[in-house]
């Protein structure tokens, strides 16, 4: 009895959470007129790939995808590199200011990015980096460094210190200890952090909108939101849904592929490995 109750509850939650996405998927495979049919059809009467071909052929979707990949990958790499170095310093080197630095970094994370938008845009305009990857990559990375520091410092702290002592006696230098011992051992935490930072950058909208004014530089979320129909009064819902599906699936696939790593990263330290 109790099991059935739990199962029903779980089923309800899953449906509740996934319903919007399910609706998006269903809409994306409906032919044009059916998208706007009244009353709405829940299951598509006919399957059609026209929205997908439309987005790929008539819109610069591939370009958006490329922009998003470049920005997300580069900012993830940057945030992780800076974050790992900072986190290691904070967690392990006996610096007097370590605590202050760590708190300072978190303070920065408390600012809503929207507050930073105007001054950042001004700065980017001044140095002439509008519509360049560099500016967006730097800002996405900077916004994620606190999170990366937080995740990695926590992981580094619970790593057995004797491991690094052994490495020092064995003859590793400080940087070698980080690159050849600490980081490989932290692979699960790094993977978890990387995925979450990547998803943040992949989904980030406001800053990408403000920094990229030329259509061919837009990232996926901005590009999709600005998809317009033949007239100002027509919103191409079918194509938007197709684009959203194509945007979401790669990330979902990546998360599923790394899932075991991420879980072991988030729960690391709970169980001694």
């Amino acid at each position, binding site marked *: 009895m109790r099991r059935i109750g739990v199962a029903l509850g779980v089923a309800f939650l899953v449906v509740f959470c996934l319903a919007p996405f399910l609706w998006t998927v269903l809409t994306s495979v409906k032919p044009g007129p059916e998208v706007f049919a009244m009353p709405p059809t829940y299951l598509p009467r006919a399957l059609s790939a026209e929205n997908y071909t439309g987005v790929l052929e008539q819109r610069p979707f591939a370009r958006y995808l490329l922009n998003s990949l470049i920005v997300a990958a580069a900012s993830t790499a940057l945030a992780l590199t800076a974050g790992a170095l900072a986190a290691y310093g904070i967690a392990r080197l006996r610096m007097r200011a370590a605590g202050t630095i760590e708190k300072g970094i978190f303070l920065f994370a408390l600012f809503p990015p929207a507050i930073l938008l105007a001054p950042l845009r001004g700065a980017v305009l001044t140095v002439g980096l509008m519509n360049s990857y560099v500016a967006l990559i730097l800002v996405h990375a900077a916004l994620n460094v606190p999170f990366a520091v937080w995740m990695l410092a926590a992981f580094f702290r619970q790593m057995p210190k004797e491991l690094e002592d052994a490495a020092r*006696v064995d003859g*590793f230098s400080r940087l070698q200890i980080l690159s050849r011992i600490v980081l490989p051992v932290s692979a699960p935490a790094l993977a978890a952090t990387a995925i979450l930072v990547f998803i943040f950058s992949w989904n980030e909208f406001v800053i990408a909108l403000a920094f990229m004014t030329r259509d061919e530089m837009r990232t996926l979320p901005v590009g999709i939101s600005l998809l317009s129909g033949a007239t100002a009064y027509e919103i191409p819902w079918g194509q938007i849904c197709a684009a959203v599906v194509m945007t979401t699936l790669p990330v979902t696939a990546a998360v599923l592929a790394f899932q075991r790593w991420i879980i072991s990263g988030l729960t690391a330290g709970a169980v001694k490995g």
Partner: protein
Amino acid sequence: MSGVTLDVPDGEILTVLGPSGCGKSTLLRLVAGLDRPDSGEITIGGEDVTGREPKDRDVAMVFQSYALYPHMKIFENIAVALRLRRLPREEVGCRVAKAAEMLGISGLLGRYPRQLSGGERQRAALARAIVRDPKAFLLDEPLSNLDALQRERTRAELKTLFKEIRATVLYVTHDQIEAMTLSDQMAVMRSGQIEQVGKPEEIYARPTTFFVAGFVGSPQMNLLPGDLFPGGAHTVGIRPEDILLAPEGPMEMGVVLRESLGSQVLLSLRGGGLELKALVPAGRPAAENERVRLDPARAHFFSADGRRIDSPSISSSAVTRKGRDGH
């Protein structure tokens, strides 16, 4: 920690024995170079290494947790220190194979640490130290994560191994059996100070401080008020095996508890305002009361500040307890 002077003779095993938190691990870390001393100097093989990084001290260390690199196979774990010192490939392979053979882990070189049992990991950690052929070995409670049986076996193997390669070893432990059995020299440490250094049997026979008397030896030495014997000692210590049970003994004490240790029995005795533990052969018949004689020749005397008093002015004849006796 202050005022610590220790000398490990070439090719000998010196163990540092002390309760947890006494600074023995800190001592080891200072020698390894993992921590820096505020003052004083550390020499290894005649060279002053006080200001040097751990890697430039030519010491190898074995940690309590073994600290094997989890992402490297056992071969890599053992080889990496040699590789970092840019030894030629063939020599690295040769030395790793030899070290692995000495420790009987040749078949495990292709595995990862997580695929090894506790005892095997311990051997791998030892191999990692031995392969370096360092001037000194530093071992920090290397046996404390093993079960009792493995510990006993490994203890004997360690001694054989270190003697075979004539290693100079500084070995830190809180286990007195380990210290007693392994050491050429033994140092007893308490709250950052060395209490006594000497051969294990010397320390057992002549503890120079009250602390050492109570810490070394199991079951623990009986520590009794000094007025048991004339001579003005503050405390008197008599080991349980030195308590004489004899019909002519002047003190009658009740047997509170009999604990069998196999070949011997540990008796807890109470009477005359005293509590004693006595170690007697297992064959001794159980009795409700025992007559006890305390022989001052087998007693250790300590002053109020815990120092040993070597020749308290007492006669060597048996002395009866005065004063509180009979209350």
